[in-house]
């Protein structure tokens, strides 16, 4: 049994079968990549996993518990964090404040009224936030306005915010899309570092094969809403069906 078990999940949008009979099992502390052509249903699958969409059929179990029908913040509290295709951070706040929010969430739960205390005097939170910023090499950006950073740094901050919650499952939707080569390599290094230092399961959607083959232990190829093959990176590279459905198309 993997930590994440997706069984027979189907989702229609009007006449379009975005997902059909998706089965997926992700082993604990592994890195599992989902690849596939545009419109294959990868983001839709992720939306189902985090409760943004409810599937028409099938079940999604995380650590033996169903996540279907729960609200996003509840699912997050179970230990699932998500990085979005375009970085979702608190643009109006400073980097440190961005980092403090997941720390508060982790310590205090979904709602707690601390209306009189000074947030900068919550030493445990500030230290915790600073420690994670140091972990991801962003200590020097502590006072920066989050919205004014480069796309790569925003992504790094978003990942760091997810890490602060110590999630057991980290979902990444095209974390390097639209990034310059150097930023992409930095992100790969960061994710490798996270994998080696923590007990964490990673599910990554990615178009960039360099990223996929540097990180993933297993790969699922999704095409037109259903898994085509699932295998190790070595086998996927040579798989004729995959070349036809995906790699071939990308090369053409």
């Amino acid at each position, binding site marked *: 049994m993997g930590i994440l078990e997706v069984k027979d999940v189907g989702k229609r949008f009007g006449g379009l079968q975005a997902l059909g009979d998706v089965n997926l099992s992700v082993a604990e502390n592994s890195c599992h990549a989902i690849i596939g052509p545009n419109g294959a249903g990868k983001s839709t699958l992720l939306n189902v996993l985090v409760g943004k969409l409810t599937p028409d059929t099938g079940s999604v179990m995380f650590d033996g518990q169903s996540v279907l029908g729960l609200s996003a*913040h509840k699912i997050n509290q179970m230990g699932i964090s998500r990085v979005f295709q375009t970085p979702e951070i*608190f643009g*109006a706040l400073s980097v440190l404040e961005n980092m403090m*929010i997941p720390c508060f*969430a982790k310590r205090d739960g979904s*709602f707690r009224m601390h*209306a*009189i205390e*000074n947030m900068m005097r919550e030493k445990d939170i500030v230290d915790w936030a600073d420690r994670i910023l140091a972990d991801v090499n962003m200590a020097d950006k502590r006072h920066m306005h989050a919205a004014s950073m480069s796309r790569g740094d925003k992504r790094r901050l978003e990942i760091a915010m997810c890490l602060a919650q110590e999630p057991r499952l980290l979902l990444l939707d095209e974390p390097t899309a639209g990034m310059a080569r150097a930023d992409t390599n930095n992100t790969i290094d960061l994710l490798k570092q996270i994998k080696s230092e923590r007990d964490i399961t990673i599910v990554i959607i990615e178009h960039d094969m360099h990223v996929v083959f540097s990180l993933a232990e297993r790969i699922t190829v999704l095409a037109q809403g259903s898994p085509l093959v699932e295998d190790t990176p070595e086998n996927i590279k040579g798989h004729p069906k995959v070349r036809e459905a995906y790699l071939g198309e990308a090369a053409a």
Partner: protein
Amino acid sequence: MLGLNRKDFLLFLVVTFLALFAPILLNPFPVGSAMAQFNAGYPDLMQRFVIFGIFAIGFNILFGLTGYLSFGHAAFLGVGSYSVVWMYKLLDYNILPGLFLAIVVSAVFALLIGFISLRRSGIYFSILTLAFAQMSFSLAYSVLTPITNGETGLQVYTSDPQILMSGFSPSSPHLFGLVMNDSSYLKFGGWEFTFNNGYYLCAVVLMVAFYLSIRIFRSPFGLMLRAVKSNQTRLNYTGLNPRPYTLAAFVISGMYAGLAGGLMAAMDPLAGAERMQWTASGEVVLMTILGGAGTLIGPILGAGFIKYFENIFSKINDSILHSWFAFLPDGLEDAVVFIIHPFIGKGWHLTLGILFVLVVVFLPGGLVEGGQRIARLFRRKPADKTDNDTSAKTDPAE
């Protein structure tokens, strides 16, 4: 100091100083001088500055921090006034029970209205709050006449129970015998300053209200409210539920509004339905935006600014204008007065509208941003470097 960092404490001191010395600071021109009409240091107007300041400070906790724009906060203002007058009718003219009731009742109203309105965001939220306020207005105006005395407005009659009233109790609003209407006067050369009890009560309440708002801004709760404004998706995917945070902010700002409404009735023992009308809700929006939404001092500045101009501009009439421009040749004098005429007296709303447009277009951060720009001009000397610092700084501006 007082649990504030140095900058916030300084700001608090400035507001305290201004509030305490307003009767002097706002009367810079000697009585009878040509400029005396620009004096604002009389009790009635100063009370309005401070009461609307409190209203706007509270409104800013909701709008400035979370970005939820309520168009119905006047409802709580009215609720506060009715509560205070009812306590006059039932107990006596001591304002304390009334103010307490005003805060409690407006909190309950805000909880109800907020609970329903906050199921939507953006324009739908604004419309819902507006609808609730208009419903409250018509309830107060006609349906609930036994409680609100309808069109006439609620006031104290000699037939009212006033069970705590004794022969010694003052027969106008007071705080344990300190009568709100009483003033002491200071004459100094050509100047005359009025120190009014009611004004000082309001000023002390303003200081407390402002202090609490600084604490809220700097608290983890305040951080969450700013996070709600910045990105609700991320907040959700950080395991936080925005709804209780926004509801708490809504209730707090409703309580501020109720307190402000209560103080209005504490200064003048009347309450009428017109206090709940949408124009009053709109006015506090203008004040907050004009001063600088999301800044600490902005709402106070905005409230003072609007109330000052409302008074001064609406008092200027054609004969005053003629006396100002008497030095011009006759035809030109008439022409100038003719051009200015629509902007004064009853037309002062036109002036306010123009000022508002100018501020929103050129100073989206309100008067506070204007002040910061001026301060930056003076600090320009060490050049370049400061610019980077200011853009990297993210304290919500003072």
